[in-house]
């Protein structure tokens, strides 16, 4: 009894009606959400990495630039890296202009992504609060709020009582070790269902002709006269006019294969969830000073981010004391969470750049492009990252939105130092 779906040409639209119709045929007529093709001999563009960013790149290459002879090569299963391991926060309230513009582009794409993809990515705009716990935090938070507003990004400063009103379960007692002195709030920010973002993008890209090839690991690059001509994979050599590398934690490994270095280090980033409980936490709360960020998923689980481990690692696991160390802070902020229980924990590999900002850039090899360095904040950038990377690959030059995110900033010194904004993992 083998029940593999039949590859179909046209994507079936998802809707309540289609769901009902399929119920009458016992759900036997749903096609595969994306095909499982064998690689063609060559492509116009090969995107290495089937995470959210890679799939978004392929989708926007097809949608915005009409480039459909595209393959996404994924060494495992799509969405299996950081896309499926993050805490799903989406926001754009970054301090520096370049970041705010890029993340805001991404947030705007997120706001219409369910409709655009015809896939419910459960974009939940319940608001993200970044708490301030000392005078320095307050000053920097306000700085960010004013900057956001002037950039046309929604942001508010909340006094402690307003924090409490927005999220009643937070303890704002001035007696706390690090009392809540206020917060920034981005109301349009929130969370989205991470898996659905990957799957929806895959389905939509596939529908536009993109080949998504799983279990296909890139093992080398074909480079002639300083320009890429193809990639070597566990499924054979595949020709490519252009190659985009979007592999997050493994970027250094791939770039090494292509013969150049990037200023990245890969670290474990851990996260965890509680058992599912009835809705109790209405928004997303992040705190740099006490290193906690937490939201509640639609399934009822509290989704909690732990900090980044200091050491380099590709093991997809970190040290337990990192998680444990944050529970005191969690309990301080949310005293009613004490008796709830950690159900699952996991780790991802984040690639961090020296200035905690992404690199979306041309490389020393012609027609190889990289998109990396998202550190702990990549999920929220998914569609925006794909959009500007598709543009960069298609045009051979960065879009104004990612013009500041190129590799040469490490030579010139024009860093986009978001350590303040990215001090806590998210």
């Amino acid at each position, binding site marked *: 009894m083998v029940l593999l779906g039949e590859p179909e040409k046209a994507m079936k639209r998802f809707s309540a009606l289609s769901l009902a119709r399929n119920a009458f045929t016992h759900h036997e007529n749903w096609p595969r959400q994306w095909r499982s093709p064998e690689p063609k001999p060559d492509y116009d563009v090969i995107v290495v990495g089937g995470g959210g960013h890679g799939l978004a790149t392929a989708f926007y290459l097809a949608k915005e630039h009409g480039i459909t002879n595209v393959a996404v090569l994924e060494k495992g299963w799509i969405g299996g890296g950081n896309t499926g391991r993050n805490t799903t926060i989406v926001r754009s309230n970054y301090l520096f202009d370049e970041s705010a513009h890029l993340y805001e582009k991404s947030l705007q794409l997120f706001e219409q992504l369910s409709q655009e993809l015809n896939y419910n990515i459960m974009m939940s705009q319940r608001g993200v609060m970044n708490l301030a716990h000392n005078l320095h935090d307050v000053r920097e938070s306000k700085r960010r709020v004013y900057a956001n507003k002037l950039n*046309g990004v929604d942001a508010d400063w909340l006094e402690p009582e307003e924090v409490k009103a927005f999220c009643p379960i937070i303890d704002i007692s001035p007696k706390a*070790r690090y009392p809540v002195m206020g917060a920034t709030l981005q109301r349009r920010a929130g969370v989205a269902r991470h898996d659905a973002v990957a799957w929806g993008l895959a389905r939509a890209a596939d529908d536009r002709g993109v080949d998504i090839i799983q279990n296909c690991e890139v093992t080398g690059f074909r480079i002639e006269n300083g320009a890429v001509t193809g990639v070597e994979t566990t499924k054979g050599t595949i020709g490519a006019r252009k190659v985009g590398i979007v592999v997050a934690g493994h970027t250094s490994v791939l770039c090494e294969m292509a013969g150049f270095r990037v200023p990245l280090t890969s670290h474990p980033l851990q996260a965890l969830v509680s058992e599912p409980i009835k809705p109790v936490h209405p928004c997303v709360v992040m705190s740099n000073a006490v290193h906690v960020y937490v939201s*509640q998923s639609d399934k009822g689980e509290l989704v909690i981010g732990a900090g980044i481990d200091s050491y380099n690692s590709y093991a997809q696991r970190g040290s337990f004391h990192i998680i444990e160390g944050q529970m005191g*802070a969690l309990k301080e902020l949310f005293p009613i969470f004490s008796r709830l229980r950690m159900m699952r924990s996991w780790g991802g590999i984040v690639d961090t750049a020296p200035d905690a900002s992404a690199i979306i850039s041309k490389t020393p090899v012609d027609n190889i492009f990289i998109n990396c360095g998202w550190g702990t904040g990549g999920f929220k950038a998914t569609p925006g990252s794909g959009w500007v990377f598709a*543009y960069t690959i298609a045009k051979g030059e960065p879009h104004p939105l990612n013009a500041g995110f190129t590799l040469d900033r490490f030579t010139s*010194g024009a860093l986009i130092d978001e350590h303040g904004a990215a001090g806590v993992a998210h």
Partner: protein
Amino acid sequence: MTGSMRLAQGGRIDRSKPLRFTFNGKSYTGYQGDTLASALIANGVHLIARSMKYHRPRGIMAAGSDDPNCMVQLAKGARTEPNLKATQIALYDGLEATSVNVFPSLDFDIGAVNGLLAPFMTAGFYYKTFMPSQAFWNKVAEPVIRRAAGFGKAPDAPDPDVYDHCHVHCDVMVVGGGPAGLAAAKAAAATGARVMLADEQSEFGGCLLSLDRTIGGKPCAEWVAETVAELDAAEEVRLLPRTTVTGLYDQNYMVAVEQRIADLTRSSPANPRMRVWHIRARQVVLAAGSHERPLVFADNDRPGTMLAGAALTYLNRYGALPARHALLVTNNDWAYETALTLAANDVQVTVADTRRDVAGDLTDKLTAAGIALKTNRTVTGVTGGKHVTRVTLKAMNDTRDGVTGEAEEIDVNGLIVSGGYSPAVHLHCHVGGKLAFDDERACFVPATARDGLRCVGGTAGHFTIAEAIADGLSAGRAAAVDAGLKSGRAPKALAVEGDIASGAGAIEPMWLMPADKAPNRSKAKFFVDYQNDTGAADIALAAREGFDSVEHMKRYTLTGFGTDQGKLGNINGLAILAQLTGRTISETGTTTFRPPYTPVTFGALAGRDVGDMMDPVRVTSIHDWHVSAGAEFEDVGQWKRPWYFPKAGETMHQAVARECRAARTGVGVLDASTLGKIEVTGKDAGEFLDRVYTNMMSSLKVGFVRYGLMLGEDGMVSDDGTASRIADNRYLITTTTGGAASVFQRLEDYLQTEWPDLDVYLTSVTEQWATVTVSGPKARFLLERLTELPLDPDSFAFMTFQDAQVAGLPARIYRISFTGELSFEVAVAWHHGKALWEAVMEAGHDLGVTPYGTETMHVLRAEKGFIIVGQETDGTLTPDDLGMNWIVSKKKADFVGKRSLIRPDTVREDRKQLVGLLPDDAGFVVPEGAQLVDDPVTLKDVPHFEPPGLDGAPIYRAGKGSPVPMLGHVTSSYWSDALGRSFALGLVKRGRTRHGETIHAPLGDRTVAMKIVDPVFYDAEGSRRDG
């Protein structure tokens, strides 16, 4: 079922200690030694909960942490706890439990209407709908879904209980106190090794507590008792009952959670409710046993359906009868023990085996016990909404993928199932251990060896007690030897009698059982993950839609995402996926096992690191004085620093103005003890400081002090402070309060790794010295009352220091000023800090000496245009940006960060530069952080950002949707008592060339015009520093 299902005798419960409890408001009685589950079963209660999606009635399937169904909300108020498994709750008198996620009641649950919608609520249905618009999702669909999701409720008040941590080490850690674990601990302990043995149950013995075996000629219960007593008596053995090892990490580090109080007894620091053990073991023996799997057939979730091993446990260990008329459905030999034991307790039993052939000795035993055996059978239906009443069986066809022949209906009130056992390999996998599928035993077993880790007994796929004991004895001894102990005599082998043989054919792999209809066409549900209501049809849909990777299937169908973490269902799920996609189970693979093995209470993980223990509070030796003076405190790193000292009725603004006035016109005093202090000694001390400061320190004369700036190698200002030359080969340098630790570490880094040939030693002396700053025109006058040292400018020049007695204390006085006023910093031994402070306060009483805090310090220094690292700077500013090129040596060939100062970006002309800012509204203090723009825009008029599109238009452009270009921001902003107006410091692009121009700070409802001026507002000529 009604009436007592408690056996008159037998089991390990204490019938002399009855316990009363309520479940969903109804009262019941159980006994000491019961779990909530066993007590309910003994009371004939099987309907415990409803499932998540369809709200199907559910009962008790298992007897431990693997049960997917029987979640309850325990207790009430602040001590309530959601989602506890009835199988894991030790019964106590007065226990109150209720079902979760039911409305209005467990018996009549409105959510059950979802069952009718089941045809639409397939795996991932929510990805396919609810998306006419983003607003519809945010405002309509999601709130409904959120309310429906989740099981129990969070408490509504802070947790009154106490939890703590303990860190221990041992030679051999044995995880699991069943036969293999006990044997391993015994053998290891015999060598004198330091042994720890943890088991999640309150009693050691594991499955031996539920089985009838003879070990070494003794009944197994007796052997357990003896072994435990022997271990308990051994000096170097630590027994941890009620303790679950939840995670194994690199280098044999384990986290284990001990439940010390299982009832409502109040906990305290002396008696915590839970303790998290952090265990570092040289060797680990994993004897965690195995988990029985259910079988996947039509409506395999009716209350009254129970795993064979669990049925045996309830019967033998708790004396609770799970049924009076039972059908056992099995694919393996091991389950027969349950049938035989039930029969021995007068339960009418039928056995339906999927296999065509069952070993002769087993059939003989069944015959002898009067049990009917039906082979080659599958279950095609189970009836009984709230309790199983009837099971329909059919024979399997020749190809064993369908059914044939007539249905047989068997009336029962208990359906016992066994699909075989899955080794509890979780901890093995936590550290990257791999698995292999063992076809003969139909389970995944550990396939990779790891130094210092041994899997034994059920964890190794050895399901008989004889194997487990033999495994344990040999592994325990070997582990001790590997841990460095002398082996001594080999432990005596122990004969075990009573096992059901476990040879070839003991199990037939059976995943999705043949049925009348394919699961997706059937009205019945073929559950795989009970808690998430994932059925075989959902897995089929996932496979059909391309989610054929096991990880995709898991995520799409939620298999294994429940609070039972898939202990029961995961293997069935992936095996069915393998079956549906035409792959082997090995090819399909498992999902990743990650900690924790069972859910862990957050409060336990926090331990005692709560309240003020969350992070150390660092205090100076003068702290108590500040507290009694009513100071408000500011957190600076871990330090508590006085922020300001309000007098009764004073606002902060008034207090700070008063403090400032005192320091400018009289005398103020500041506790400056928190600054980092490092002694730099050795003949190359000066050379070393030259390399790490931007300015020259080697030229400093003994007795002199110099201000210095440190950069990162990126050229950005990272810290500042003073260097005082104590002797030729000795300096004392200060750092910012927050930067002390990182500066010290960075300096050691340079010294040890870059310049090891320099003869320099660094010693942190931050807490050797308490420092009291006396500042203001009357500072000299005050201090002269306390010391005989001449303090006049001729005797004591600015930027020098001298040793002296101050108030009878040995002290060092520095003449430096961060306020612009005449100022002395008096340093004494930390333990003299309070005496010095009190002496200063007393001596200055008639002068109106005024203690001031960090806020006043900030105002005073800002009036002078002095920066604060971390306030004016944010890691992106060079000395030139701050107008501090005067402190950057032109003579030195190199210093840390120098090369970066000539990078293209750092020599850019439009960099932000430090300026002074005077609001046109002199009474208005602009908020710090306010952004600065050229045009007087108001924030509410700024349009929502419209990113440029595919035309690649510039971001800043004419028209709507363009951001407002920002030129900088306000870094410091205060009311100045001395100036009689507000003022600010800020960073502005090309600011130094724009003095006199106006710039704007758009705020919430107003936009404030500010004039750009020189950052020195007060006493620019420096006339006041000599008093």
